[in-house]
């Protein structure tokens, strides 16, 4: 800003010439780097201090024995790949990785995508009243804070909860579903919580599919499902891939919902990578090992992202 005021007033002649000389979109008064460094400053500071810093620290710390307490806390040493060797040998890590992938596939890829797409398709061209009512209910679940969603599903699946009351009519024995089927419980809860996002993005994608293409296919004798699979879905594949990407990144990091509902239990039957990371790094104080788990989490997310990008690439070539 000081650069602005320091500039001497321009003569009319300069004023006319300046934008032309500097190329489109350049301001009078501000020269060089100051015109973007000053306004970008606060954002750059926040991003570097709280994003880039921790990420670099993650990579570094995963090669050390950084710890919260004890001798290692005072003197952090470089231990090479020891954390990763320990990771690969740790049966709990293997089970957490599998559970994370099960959670991701069950709730993110299959549950939210199928349900979200189904809802978006069914709601398309419905009466505004129907769309509004169903939309409010589904989006309501999405807006509710994660902790509250955890409580709600805890209450729903507990031994004294509503599900047993409903299933009691069918003669199913009362049980604490959080205990007998912890993964199914958290997957259902996450589908409930997350479907609205997929529904909204798919609804936006579907609204851009030209209706004359669908009409043409129907005139040619295609059934509803044929139109869906051969016309509509290929047209919104970009939306599908992007949504899957965002849902995956969102789903692998779910901590609160699982922590509130089962705290990773019983035993470690619902301990996904974020919960294992929390336990190792913050409860047991082993920061180095915890960050190695965090890197593994990023790796899982990255691998799935790669699949979607690939999917987009091969589809586009057709």
């Amino acid at each position, binding site marked *: 800003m000081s650069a602005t005021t320091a500039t001497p007033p321009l003569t009319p002649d300069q004023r006319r010439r300046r934008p032309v000389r500097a190329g489109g*979109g350049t301001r009078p008064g501000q020269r060089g780097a100051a015109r973007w460094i000053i306004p970008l400053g606060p954002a750059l500071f926040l991003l570097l201090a709280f*994003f880039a810093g921790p990420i670099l620290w993650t990579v570094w710390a995963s090669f050390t024995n950084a710890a*919260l307490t004890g001798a290692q806390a005072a003197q952090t040493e470089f231990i090479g790949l020891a954390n990763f060797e320990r990771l690969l040998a740790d049966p709990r890590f293997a089970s957490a990785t599998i559970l994370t992938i099960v959670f991701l596939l069950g709730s993110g890829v299959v549950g939210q995508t199928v349900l979200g797409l189904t809802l978006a398709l069914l709601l398309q061209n419905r009466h505004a009243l129907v769309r509004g009512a169903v939309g409010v209910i589904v989006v309501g679940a999405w807006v509710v804070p994660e902790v509250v969603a955890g409580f709600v599903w805890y*209450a729903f699946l507990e031994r004294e*909860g509503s599900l047993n009351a409903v299933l009691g009519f069918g003669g199913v024995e009362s049980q604490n579903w959080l205990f007998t089927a912890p993964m199914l419980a958290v997957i259902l809860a996450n589908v409930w919580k997350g479907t609205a996002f997929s529904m909204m993005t798919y609804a936006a994608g579907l609204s851009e599919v030209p209706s004359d293409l669908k009409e043409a296919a129907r005139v040619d004798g295609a059934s509803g499902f044929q139109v869906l699979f051969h016309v509509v879905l290929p047209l919104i594949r970009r939306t599908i891939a992007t949504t899957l990407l965002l849902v995956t990144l969102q789903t692998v990091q779910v901590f609160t919902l699982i922590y509130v509902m089962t705290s990773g239990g019983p035993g470690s039957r619902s301990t996904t990578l974020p919960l294992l990371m929390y336990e190792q790094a913050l409860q047991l104080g082993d920061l180095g090992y915890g960050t190695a788990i965090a890197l593994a989490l990023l790796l899982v997310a990255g691998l799935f992202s790669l699949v979607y990008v690939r999917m987009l690439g091969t589809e586009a070539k057709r």
Partner: protein
Amino acid sequence: MSAVSQAPPSATGRRAGGRRTGSAITAPGRLASAGLVYLVLGVLALLFLVPSLWMVFAAFDTEPSLRATPPTSLTLAHFEAVLTPDIFYRPMWNGILICGGAAVVTVLASVLAAYPLSRYTLRFKRPFMYTVLFATGLPITAIMVPVYGMFVQANLLNSRAATMLFLAASTLPFGIWLMKNFIDGIPITLEEAAWVDGASAWQSLRLLVAPLLAPGIAVVGIFTLVMTWGNFFVPFILLTSPDKMPAAVRIFTFFGQYGSVRYGELAAYSLLYTLPVVALYIAVSRALGGKFSFGGAMKG
């Protein structure tokens, strides 16, 4: 349902009937399947509704349980029991400080950052925007352990201001992305006219762009509020003393202490904690003309 039995969906029926009404072209639009569609929609809506019914019922029930049964007699006693400084008012105030601060910081930083990114031709613009997009999707949970380590070393642990700044940083990438789209939508010709008249970049940003950007500012601000208000993990890890905890964490400790017995109070607290987010969400969807989807933000 009667429609279903009258006209069983067959391939020939679909083809023949396909031309009857305007909406009949779209796959599930025919009379035969319309009933089925409404049935499926109704069942799905019910499945989504039932779990949350418990919260509403138990909050007002004189004899609350974990079951979602309509209360036989109503009471406000659960709300009274929860509305104490220790359980409700202080955590809410902490939440307002932390999340409101994060919203203000995010809005200011993203307007300032998005403006040059939208208006200038900068060499690093494309890589910068891609980095921002990448950061938007970065799982925050994965960097919480290093952030915790950093907070311990920098002596920032248990500081509300530092937690607020971290939350602001975590929503900033999305804020910049949204804000740039909003500024891109403001015609540059207006500003060019101002520059010709001798206005500085700062003046045209403050006097011209900012007023036109009001919807964008509202959306980014409210979005940050909604995101941070519901965030449990970050304050749970970065704050340690109970008197600094926002409602997100306090309600969880309440659940841990009394959750298995005082259902009514838990439900009442959950309702009180959820309502501001719902109100803000309605406000943001109004601001966007009722079409709140990430479609625009995702296309980039």
